[in-house]
């Protein structure tokens, strides 16, 4: 494990009478890809803004490379904020060169790097175009280029795929992989659990301004009870102390069980209760399942322990389906 690139300890953020983040502590190690997860309003963006010196924290220590972040230290920082945009009335090459210079690059170097990047993303012929003459997808590519200028050692991406089309999403993922390979530390603030599972070494789940879970993905999965049983069936799922009903639709349900629970007992309970089981698959609990378990109660009533809550949606429409 590398040294802490980012160290946050006892961070608290109040806005008037509202406490948005309370006593938050975590480290992000050099070279790792870190997932910063949480529902809307859980304090993710506030934490990032405080870390970057945009907000003044109410209390706590927020360090990058062992010290408070100041703009003078921002040469090797790549930040893609949630609210993003560039100077729409300026030429693409001028914008990129400007940001390169703000990040400490020489004008000539910044310009050369920008042209190479634009060539890579098939925008070389648009270098002298005014930004708002570019399509939305092209503008996203420029934004990405600005973010990764000057070989960042710390890349902070707040909702990086928000608003991105599939092509640019792919490009973004490639860039994250490249930066990771080049030794960059990456912090991803996101709702996209598949991307987190694929890219992140460790995660933190923020809920109501505090850390709900923190660790490697395995550690977090283990904390939330290990396994999910996905069932295609006919007939209502009975209540049982052996499992928790996470999702129940007309012919498809998901049950959460602990690692110690024997699947055979569950299957027997179902059959004994008159349920016709057509498929029965056990998988490790996904981050998305955990996310829904942690934050689901904020948005809708829990289906846990509710009998006969048959939905109209077909199986798999809400969740990835398990195989037979």
């Amino acid at each position, binding site marked *: 494990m590398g040294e802490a690139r980012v160290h946050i300890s006892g961070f608290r953020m*109040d*806005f*008037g009478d*509202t406490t*948005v983040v309370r006593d938050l502590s975590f480290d992000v190690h050099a070279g790792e890809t870190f997932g910063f997860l949480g529902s809307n*309003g859980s304090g993710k*963006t*506030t934490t990032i*803004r405080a870390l*970057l*010196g*945009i*907000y*003044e924290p*109410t209390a706590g220590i927020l360090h990058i490379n062992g010290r408070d*972040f100041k*703009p*003078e230290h*921002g*040469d090797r*920082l790549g*930040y893609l*904020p*949630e*609210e*993003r*945009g*560039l*100077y*729409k009335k*300026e030429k693409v090459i*001028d914008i990129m060169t*400007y*940001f390169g*210079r*703000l*990040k400490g690059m020489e004008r000539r170097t910044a310009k050369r790097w920008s042209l190479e990047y634009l060539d890579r993303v098939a925008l070389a012929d648009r270098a002298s175009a005014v930004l708002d003459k570019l399509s939305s997808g092209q503008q996203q590519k420029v934004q990405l280029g*600005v*973010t990764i200028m000057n070989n960042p050692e710390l890349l902070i991406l707040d909702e990086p795929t928000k608003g991105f089309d599939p092509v640019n999403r792919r490009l973004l993922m490639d860039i994250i992989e490249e930066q990771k390979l080049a030794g960059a530390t990456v912090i991803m603030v996101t709702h996209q659990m598949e991307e987190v599972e694929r890219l992140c070494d460790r995660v933190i789940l923020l809920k109501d301004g505090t850390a709900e879970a923190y660790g490697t993905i395995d550690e977090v999965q283990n904390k939330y009870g290990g396994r999910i049983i996905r069932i295609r069936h006919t007939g209502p799922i009975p209540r049982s102390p052996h499992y928790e009903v996470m999702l129940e639709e007309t012919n498809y349900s998901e049950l959460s069980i602990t690692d110690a629970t024997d699947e055979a007992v569950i299957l027997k309970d179902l059959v004994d209760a008159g349920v016709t089981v057509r498929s029965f698959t056990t998988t490790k609990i996904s981050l998305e399942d955990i996310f829904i378990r942690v934050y689901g109660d904020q948005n809708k009533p829990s289906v846990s322990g509710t009998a006969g809550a048959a939905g109209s949606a077909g199986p798999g429409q809400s969740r990835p389906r398990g195989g037979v």
Partner: protein
Amino acid sequence: MAQHNLGTVVSFEFIRTVTKRRFWIGTLSVPIIIAVVFGLIFLSNSTTDTAAAAQKSAQFSISYTDASGLITAKDAALFGATSAVSPDAGIQAVQSGTVDAYFDYPAHPETTAVRVHGADKGIFENGKYAAVAQAMLTHAVEQRIGSPQLSALAAGKVQVETVTYDGTKESGGLGSVIPPLFFLVIFYGLIVLLAGQMLNSTLEEKENRVTEMILTTLKPRTLIAGKVIALFGIGLVQMLVFLSPVVIGRLFFPEALSLTALDLPPLILDPFRMTVGLLVLVGGFALFTTTLVAIGAVMPTAKEAGNFMGVMMALIFVPFYAVALVVSDPQSLIVQIFTYFPFSAPVTALLRNGFGSLSPLEAGIVIVILFVGAAVMLRLAVRLFQYGSISYTSKVNIRTALRAGSRHPAAEKPPDDNGPLKTDS
């Protein structure tokens, strides 16, 4: 200590403005309009002189009747005029084309108009009839007085030269008024052309959502200072462009710049008034720049900010409602208020400075007000930008922003709008 990235911001903001076509269209339009207006005046004066000269030597047939008895046959003969039998006959002669003009001199030309009837030669050339009718009568009266000197005096052709003194020193008169008033013209030109850019300079980051990325590379104070310095540079370029016709004229057309064609005296550059004018111009420009930047930091969109720009523009025209008092009674209450109220001070002080009614003490006070006001507004602009730059959809609560001077400022709303930005410490 130099501010991190200040030079980069200044050069970016400056270059991206002066390389835009619309900047040069706006900037060059001012000297072009001035040149066109001066050209038209010059041309008009030349045309008038030429026309007058032509009318003096105009040759056309004239008949006349004279009820006053002032014009003798000898006087008339000098102009080639012949006596008509009656007014009706004279008019008929014109209508039939027998003569070009008929002049009907009344019994009392000092109170009754001389009627001139002439063949239509076009609106400009028709003026020759009246000129000759006038000349005939003047000549006849001069002959009766018998003295050209008395005639001239009776006609009011008296030249008066006024010399005024400022202490023991001769003051410059109108020639010394015009140069300091150039600063007023430049002030208007700069504000009218740059106000929109001043207002939008901070709004642009907000509207385009660039703020957060920018603020990881420089401090809000650096960004604002860079923009204000760049605006000064842009203003300087515009000032030079505005003055370029005068400089070019002075270098290459010194005769024309004596302004005799405009009936103006030679210009006198009073060092004190020119210095005061320059300082008031710079101070006023600084105050308006920082104020408009501060307004831009508060408003979420250019549309909403536009309402405030109207108010600012009105403030630079308000002193003209009292311009008569500014000139004739500079110590009146309203002029004093306009002189010291920061946003009407530049125009009022520049007017008074031009007309020589701004004392050194008053000038000093106004200059201090403008520069201190600009410094205060710059601080305020930075503070408001710190609070408002990521307030993307709502106006900044100014009271909250001003109250937050401590390390733990309290905002009224949670982010993503209106969070307290870190102050420059």
